[in-house]
């Protein structure tokens, strides 16, 4: 069968397999769905369309406007179905944005792929709303006052993505090259976008 992670107890794996087997029988699960998840997420999918949307917004003012006013439609430019729940929040010299889900781990999977593990764990979920500046500093990004920090707690079905500030030199690069520099963590708001070779 599949390779299971060695750290996870046999107990959990046996329950998962039992549930899978029962739900297949009962017509509540499709093998195609399982295969599709495996194909999409058992390798690194990166930040996906999110990175491309940000790169385009940096280069194309009209797309930027669409992204900020109607992100749900902006995703369709990259072949995805409309995603009406998506909201994009814009970083400026005066404001930085940070996304969290304190109650569970809501995250815009369709445009940002799998959430990082730390995003789902208690340290981030507990501290992001209480001490965002200190937390970002510990994570390697010092954001001094008076730059404001806005934290977006995804408590409903809306999903938030940060439009980061473009790094110096971004205007001279291609959309593809830029998209390759935009990390998942930058779209959550815990690190700036850096070009290769930049410090």
């Amino acid at each position, binding site marked *: 069968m*599949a*390779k*299971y*992670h060695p750290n*996870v*107890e046999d*107990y*959990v794996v*046996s*329950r*998962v*397999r*039992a*549930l899978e*087997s*029962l*739900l297949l*029988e*009962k*017509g*509540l*699960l*499709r093998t195609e769905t*399982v295969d599709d*998840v*495996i194909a999409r997420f*058992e*390798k*690194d999918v990166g930040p996906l369309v999110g990175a491309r949307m940000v790169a385009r917004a940096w280069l194309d003012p009209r797309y930027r406007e669409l992204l900020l006013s109607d992100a749900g439609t902006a995703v369709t430019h990259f072949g995805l179905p409309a995603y009406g*729940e998506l909201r994009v929040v814009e970083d400026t010299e005066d404001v930085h944005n940070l996304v969290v889900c*304190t*109650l*569970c781990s809501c995250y815009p999977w369709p445009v940002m*792929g*799998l*959430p*990082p*593990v*730390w995003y*789902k764990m208690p*340290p*981030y979920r*507990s*501290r992001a*709303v*209480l001490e965002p500046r200190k*937390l970002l500093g*510990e*994570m390697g990004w010092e954001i001094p*006052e008076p730059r*404001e920090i*806005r*934290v*977006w*707690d*995804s*408590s*409903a*079905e*809306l999903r938030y993505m940060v439009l980061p500030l473009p790094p110096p030199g971004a205007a001279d690069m291609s959309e593809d090259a830029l998209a390759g520099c935009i990390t998942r963590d930058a779209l959550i708001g815990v690190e700036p976008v850096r070009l290769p070779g930049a410090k």
Partner: protein
Amino acid sequence: MVEGDHAPFCHAPARLLNLGSKLASKYTSGVNGVHDLGGMHGFGPVERSPDPPTLVRWESIVRAIQLDTRAAGVMNVDEFRYGIERMDPVHYLSSPYFEHWLDGISRVLVEKGRITEAELEARAASLVAETEPPTAARAAFKAVPPAGFRRDVAWAPQRHVGDRVRTSTASPVGHTRMARYARGKLGTVHARHGAYVFPDSSAHGLGDDPQHLYSVRFAAAELWGESAEAGTSVYIDLWEPYLQTA
């Protein structure tokens, strides 16, 4: 649980317990559960890994089960979340993320009579013993039309952008998305999102009960008093029933 002054307060690691008894717990949880982590102290630093996130096989299967039980109309996202929130608190804090999903999904499916604890136990045992019965016939999967979360309602939102509002101080038993750290606090309506399915109803089989949803801004000083970091604020999406006129 064992008792006596020495036998202690000793939750056995939840995964060593009988899964069935956990699932069937008659004790409900509310938003004041350990899942409601905003503002908690003591969990230490955020530790990032250089490795990109990927799923392993059992996690993929759990994710697929979550997608398909939802697509089949068997379990909505609020029921799913409320299933997770009723985990044993120590189990919640000490188990991997997708084990939360497994536990929550199993609990809801048992409650809804879609599976029984006994058949789950029996199937797991037969798989472990490799005495898996010949594959039974499979019922056909029937998807329900996806409905999303947004709803059209006939009434206008009661709050306007810029309105001052105070959040509810209630500590309801059951599922809610009114986080504890923002309860009883003064905020300002930042945006109106339209009407959305109301989790406090939807999680309990009481229907969509759509309500207007708002983005509400809270100054850090309102949330955390003198412990607040200067120049920070939190935006939270809140349904109209959570809000009172300030």
